[in-house]
């Protein structure tokens, strides 16, 4: 977490327990998901969570290159998380940095858990996550969007992964940290979760927490993932309805 001292005049939580953007501790930022927004990709989803804007696209299952990476028993789920150079205040140099490579790895692992990879030996299922505008929580936003894009692509999956973070701000456990909370807060716990089976598939933490605080945060994030899961399913349902209205053959 930041480690940067809080600038003068900024209070992360007011006397009424309202957070800097007016939310209550257990409140998520506004969430909007739309499935099937790109033509070229096999599946896609666009997501806004607060001021985050994230696009996810899926290609595959398709032949895996280079060939020596092929797994004869199953498909590889390969996630590529990328931040657009203009998605942050200080321009990000194009290309993968260490942070994005780490995020790509843990999202790949989380998604692999839910895809029936054994149906598609020797193939690659490529998941591209593009952060267009970043405002804290992009890895969770990306994982949530990628799940929807996989389903939109018709990839057989055990379930959807929902993702959000809990954290500690002004000595209070809160949900879904915003940018200032991320910069000046005390801890962050990004979680990837399958609400139906109650499985943790992505988990990180940084900052300073007692074991009790962590337990509380984990619980809050898991509960919030249920709400996100509903939004994901809703997006897919709308996509289906739209497709159905327009004639399902016409959509892809």
């Amino acid at each position, binding site marked *: 977490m930041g480690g940067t001292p809080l600038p003068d005049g900024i209070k992360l939580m007011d006397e009424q327990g309202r957070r800097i953007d007016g939310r209550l501790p257990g409140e998520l930022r506004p969430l909007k998901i739309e499935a099937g927004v*790109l033509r070229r*990709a096999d599946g896609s989803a666009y997501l806004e969570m607060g001021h985050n804007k994230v696009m996810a696209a899926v290609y595959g299952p398709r032949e895996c290159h280079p060939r020596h990476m092929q797994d004869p028993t199953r498909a590889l789920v390969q996630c590529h998380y990328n931040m*657009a150079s203009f998605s942050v205040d200080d*321009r990000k140099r194009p290309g993968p940095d260490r942070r994005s490579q780490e995020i790509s790895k843990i999202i790949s692992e989380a998604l692999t858990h839910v895809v029936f990879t054994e149906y598609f030996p020797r193939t690659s299922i490529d998941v591209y996550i593009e952060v267009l505008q970043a405002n804290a929580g992009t890895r969770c936003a990306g994982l949530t969007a990628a799940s929807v894009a996989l389903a939109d692509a018709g990839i057989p999956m055990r379930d959807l992964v929902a993702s959000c973070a809990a954290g500690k701000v002004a000595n209070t456990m809160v949900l879904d940290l915003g940018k200032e909370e991320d910069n000046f807060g005390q801890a962050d716990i990004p979680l990837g979760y399958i609400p139906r089976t109650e499985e943790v598939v992505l988990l990180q933490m940084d900052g300073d927490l007692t074991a009790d605080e962590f337990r509380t945060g984990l619980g809050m994030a898991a509960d919030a993932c249920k709400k996100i899961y509903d939004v994901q399913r809703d997006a897919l349902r709308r996509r289906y309805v739209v497709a159905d209205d327009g004639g399902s053959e016409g959509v892809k």
Partner: protein
Amino acid sequence: MSKDVMADLKRDHIAKMLSKGIREDGRRFEEMRPITIEKEYVRSAEGSARVHLGNTDVIVGIKMMVGQPFADTPNKGVLTTNAELIPLASETFESGPPGREAIEIARVVDRGIREGQAVDMEKLCIEPEKEVWIMFVDIHALDYDGNLFDAANIAAVSALKSTVVPAKRADKGEDFPLPVAHEPISVTAVKIGEHVLVDPTYDEQSVAEARLTVATNENGNLCAMQKGGEGSLTADEVLRIVDLSRTIGAEVRAKT
């Protein structure tokens, strides 16, 4: 092999239709696809625009940073244009550093802005020889259905027009709108057999023999041009495309 067979079949089909005067999406040969422009699409950028040109979807973000001028232009800002053809947008795009295709698009968009004097670069000088504004024009493709040249050019010009230079944040005085002086607009045409079509789709582009992008300014003057593709053009075809670009460019400019 199957890919090539597919390409042959596609070419035959498209050519046959064209000989009847019909494009696959019903457009006239000299007609652009519908253009929608969302300005200020990205709050984290100093300026931005998302452009749909038919199904081609591209975002351009402008970032401004304080830096050093080049030695031979000590009193001018610096323009840097970059295109990321990320594989999200098309299965034909690959991960990794920009390939020749991305470089060509970035350089052609750059040439249009630069040679068309879109921005008054002298107004981006803070202190001669010491400090100027560096202007990053970053092109990000999201969905690729052909003619990224024009989609990116339109998005870039629109983004420039929405850009505010963050002088205050950098402790260099008050914020001010980017001094946009001209609006160079490019129009791209391809040749398929006997036919010349503007604003090609992905399929049209993939069977085209040659491509010509022409950027013009408000006064109808030419500021940049780039031929591509392994086929040839006659001088007459070149001049015809130049004329098309001047006419259609003016229509497009009205929308940015």
